[in-house]
Each structure stands twice: as structure tokens, then as C-alpha cells.
């Protein structure tokens, strides 16, 4: 079995617990942030090389599809950040916290904290998409 096939088989098929899912989510959210940074670096480069394209890029970002992508991006940033802090704290300062009970509990807590941080931003961004793209006023119009 090739390495890639083994990896994907394991990622998708292995019946791990919270740690496995946290690892996968950490990786996916990390890739999401890298994707955003790549797009962002490219669009900022347009300012210097192709100013007209930069305005097109801004218009593209205001579409509903990109708006939804940005909402996902905010979740990626919060989950990756909070989970990264948890792992760094355990690994660098408190190795004794790497027990099965603590791992399961803190992974769930990390997800809850990330969602709590993400929700206000997500609600505000949904409100803006509805307002600017569809003229629907949810609140604060």
C-alpha cells in the first residue's frame, strides 16, 4: 500500500477517539489558514503589479461564496489557535496532563471555546452577507 493510501486510509478509517478527530481538525483548519494566507498574499501583490485586478479581487470577496468561506476561515483560525495553545501548554509545561481523561475532556473544551469565540463573528458576517448581497436586514440595519 502506498504511503498516501495508508495515510488517507488511516485518517478516514481509523476509529480513534477525541485525539484523532482533534488531530484531523487541527490539520484541516491549518490547511484552511494556509489557503487563505496564499490567496491573501496573491491579492495584496495585485496592488503593486495589477491594481485593476485588486479591485476585482475585492469584488470577488464580497460574493456570498467567499463570504461563507471567510466564516469558515474564522473557525479555522480560532480552532487551530486554541488547540495549538492547548497542545503547546501540555507538551512544554505539563506532560502529566496527557492522560486519556484529560485529553478527552480538554479536546471537547477546546472545541466549545473555539465555537464560542467564532459564533459572534459568524453571526455578524452572516448579517453582512444578507444585508449587502440580498438586502435582508437581520438586525442593526
Amino acid at each position, binding site marked *: *500500500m502506498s*504511503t498516501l493510501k*495508508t*495515510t488517507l*486510509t*488511516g*485518517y478516514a*478509517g*481509523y*476509529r*480513534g*477517539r*477525541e*485525539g*484523532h478527530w*482533534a*488531530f484531523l481538525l*487541527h490539520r484541516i483548519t491549518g490547511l484552511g489558514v494556509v489557503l487563505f494566507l496564499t490567496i491573501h498574499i496573491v491579492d495584496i501583490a495585485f496592488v503593486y503589479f495589477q491594481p485593476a485586478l485588486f479591485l476585482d479581487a475585492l469584488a470577488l470577496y464580497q460574493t456570498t461564496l467567499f463570504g461563507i468561506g471567510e466564516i469558515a476561515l474564522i473557525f479555522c483560525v480560532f480552532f487551530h489557535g486554541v488547540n495549538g495553545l492547548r*497542545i503547546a501548554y*501540555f*507538551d*512544554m509545561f505539563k*506532560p*502529566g496532563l*496527557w*492522560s*486519556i481523561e484529560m*485529553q478527552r475532556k480538554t479536546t471537547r473544551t477546546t472545541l466549545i471555546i473555539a465555537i464560542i469565540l467564532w459564533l459572534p463573528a459568524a453571526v455578524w458576517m452572516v448579517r453582512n452577507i444578507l444585508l449587502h448581497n440580498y438586502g435582508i436586514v437581520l438586525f442593526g440595519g
Partner: protein
Amino acid sequence: MEVRMRIFRFNPEKDRKPHYDVFTVEAQPTDRVLDVLEWIRGDVDGTLAFRRSCAHGVCGSDAMRINGRNYLACKVLLRDLGTTEITVEPLLGLPVIKDLIVDMGPFFEHYKTVMPYLVNDELPADGKERLQSPEQRERFDDTTKCILCAACTTSCPSFWSNGQYVGPAAIVNAHRFIFDSRDQAAVERLEILNDQFGVWRCRTAFNCTEACPREIKITQAIAEVKRAIQTGRVE
């Protein structure tokens, strides 16, 4: 109870690619997965290949993936799986030799790289034995329990994606000697593990700790080795 066993089959002398065989077996809820495999091999299909030796969770030879998770087949009761549909597959990340038997060679090669033996060239003070306090012995007690079954290493996403990673089992066995007050090669072992394919490849996915049939706190042991490398102190 009737269980439906779906078993990974691969015979390199006949098969171009693996397939699954299904066996319907009458068994007791308190039977172990190993008992069912033994029955299939003994009474239904003598060509089924799997390793087993002590059959009591000590030798570590029957680690395999059961319903997508690494276990020792001799330590899992059917009733604990919560289903009568059971899929048995070989460990992931090691080459399959036949059916459920994997080539443990790469696993033991990594194990050997961490010097998994006591290094001390000085004679004991009394010429007889190297004394150790109960506290000093307790420091590495957890990692002495490893039976080298490879359930941890083959549950690790980092090992799946790169077989050069030494893996959790090798680090556990390094930990066992690094934190042994009688040993004198901690610095060498820490240097070996201070590598991109050493402890830093650990992504704390925790599958190893969940899979260990001896309940070793593997991720904690790896973190302690990381910390010893960072601080330069073996505490």
C-alpha cells in the same frame, strides 16, 4: 450469538490485491476475537494466517485492527465490541506478508536505533548490584510495561504518512532507559530522538495511548522526552 467476521485476506503467491472473506460464526459474548479466529482457522479455513503466541496479552504478537481500531485480539471480548459485525484487518503502516501478518522488521529497526538496553560501564559500588530507591524505580515504571506489539506505532498518523518516524514504541523504550537512574546513555538517546523523525514528529494525536493494551501513558512519555531535550535535564 452469531457474529459476522469480515477478514482481510492477502496471499502474495496468489492474489494481485487484497480482498475480504466473510465468515458467519456461532460464538459466546465472552469469547475473544482470537478465539473466533482460531476457530475459523481450525475448522473452516486452514489457510487463514495470523500471529498468536501466549494468547493472554503478554507476548504482544496478535495486535491487529478490529473494527478500525488497534487491539490485541486476545484481549477483546466480542461483547465489548458492541456489534456482531466484526472487521479484522492487519496493522496499518507495515507491509502485509499474508492475511493478518505484517512485517515487523521496520518496527524493530526503529526500536533498535534508540539503544533499548542498559548502558553503564562502571562497576557497582559494592561490586554486586546497582541500587535504586523505590522513587527512582517508580520514575520509569510505566514505560517498562511495553510488550512491543506495535499497536501504538501503527495507530499513529505520523507513522502512516512517513515510515521513517521512529514511532511511539521506540520512544517509550528510550524513555524506559533515559529516566533510569542506573543508566548512563540518556544524552546519546536524547540526541538520537532530537530529530525531525524523532520525538518532534509526534503530533499528539493520542491514538497510541488509546490503543496501548498495557495502558502506558505513551503521549505523556513522549512529552517528557521532548521536555528533557528542551531543558537538557532528565528529571
